[in-house]
């Protein structure tokens, strides 16, 4: 049983309330503020939707929020969030919710090499941190860290990038979600195995096949600084946001998913 002291310290944790009711319940109130969290899963598991909702709620709570996209244009991302019942385009117009296309940053910084080494990585980190400071960003999403990592030469450089970015942003009180793309059969939580070791938290999103039905699932595997459920949940992506219910165990396949 958790001690009274532990409960008290849990109450005192400064949390970034995601606004996704089910996830906040799983996390005992939200992500500890300043954590860098890996959102990992294969295609079609809802990673981008979860991250967008996290940012929209942040903007609605008055926290400046920024989405750094590597693969999709801001226009396309906006189309994904407009159907949300709680989305207000004013958030974008007022600068509470910002979208950034990383290839544009590469161009502006003159980062045109196919592979980055330490020098380029530090230029990129400085640029991101500069924007976070300038725009007073409290919630940041990088979608995806996997795509950024394609340009990084070695595991050491990936480690340097994630660790340094995470630690500077944490110091600013910015809570960061790093999207990681893995294969459906992947045994690791990230493509390079480095990101998962450095992150403060890991949220795994997956597809669970049960007797021919395919269910979208979410599981918080790790979250530093808070107690949390480690059970698997089933999620639905709706216009009212991400909804979560517990995965029923009665019929689940042993070891499945």
């Amino acid at each position, binding site marked *: 049983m958790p001690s009274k002291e532990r409960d008290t310290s849990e109450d005192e944790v400064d949390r970034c309330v995601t606004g996704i009711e089910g996830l906040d319940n799983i996390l005992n109130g939200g992500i500890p503020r300043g954590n860098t969290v890996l959102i990992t899963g294969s295609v079609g598991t809802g990673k981008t939707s979860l991250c967008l909702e996290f940012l929209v709620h942040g903007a609605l709570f008055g926290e400046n929020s920024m989405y750094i996209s590597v693969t999709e244009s801001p226009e396309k991302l906006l189309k994904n969030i407009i159907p949300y*019942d709680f989305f207000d385009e004013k958030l974008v117009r007022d600068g509470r919710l910002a979208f950034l296309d990383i290839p544009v940053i590469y161009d502006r910084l003159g980062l045109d090499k196919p592979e980055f080494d330490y020098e380029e990585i530090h230029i990129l980190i400085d640029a991101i941190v500069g924007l976070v400071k300038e725009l007073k960003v409290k919630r940041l999403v990088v979608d995806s860290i996997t795509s950024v990592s394609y340009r990084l030469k070695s595991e050491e450089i990936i480690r340097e990038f994630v660790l340094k970015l995470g630690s500077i942003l944490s110091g600013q009180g910015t809570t960061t979600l790093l999207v990681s793309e893995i294969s459906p059969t992947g045994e690791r939580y990230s493509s390079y195995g480095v990101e998962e070791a450095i992150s403060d938290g890991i949220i795994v999103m997956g597809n669970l096949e*049960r*007797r021919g*039905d395919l*269910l979208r699932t979410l599981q918080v595997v790790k979250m530093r600084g808070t107690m949390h459920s480690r059970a698997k949940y*089933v*999620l*639905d992506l*709706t216009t*009212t946001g991400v*909804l979560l*219910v*517990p*995965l*029923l*165990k*009665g*019929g689940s396949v042993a070891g499945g998913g």
Partner: protein
Amino acid sequence: MAARLATRLADLPEGSAVALRLGAENYFDTIRAILDAFAPKKQLDALYVTSTIPSKSILNALEVLEIPLDHIWFVDCISQIMMSSSEKHPHAIYVESPTMLENIMLKVEYLIRRSQGRGIVVIVDSINSLAIHNNTKILSEFLHIMVNNLRSKKAYTLIFSMEQYETEDIRNMMNLVCDETIAVEAEPGG
């Protein structure tokens, strides 16, 4: 019969979970009692989970009975598995199969969120048809979680159990999750 059942339901405290034991001959009267008397009287949004017959069939019956649909929504778990190509109704949302019990809970939760603060009654039609597609263990778990979740939201849960198809397992399950069992019977001579 419909008026008597509606009055009985209206006397239940908020958040009640009730097993309604009925015969096939009372099926549409029971639906009418809930959707045309009990729910409007209490100003409830009715969320009708159907795994017995497609929502389209019930909607057609409601149309004949001239029951307004404004506050009635369907979670249809049977149309898609039947591969029926009928057009989608704006008051129905669809779950691929009655085996996707979590998705039934998710759709109910979605409709509750959209209910704009009105009271809720969830009708599960029926435990027997769900039992065709799911084993007792997972079905008990589903009902236990859903009923308790609805209870916490002060929503009523009404679960149909067709007398002809009731088994010992189903009776035990219903006794475990429901506060009360109401045997729906036709009026003598009626």
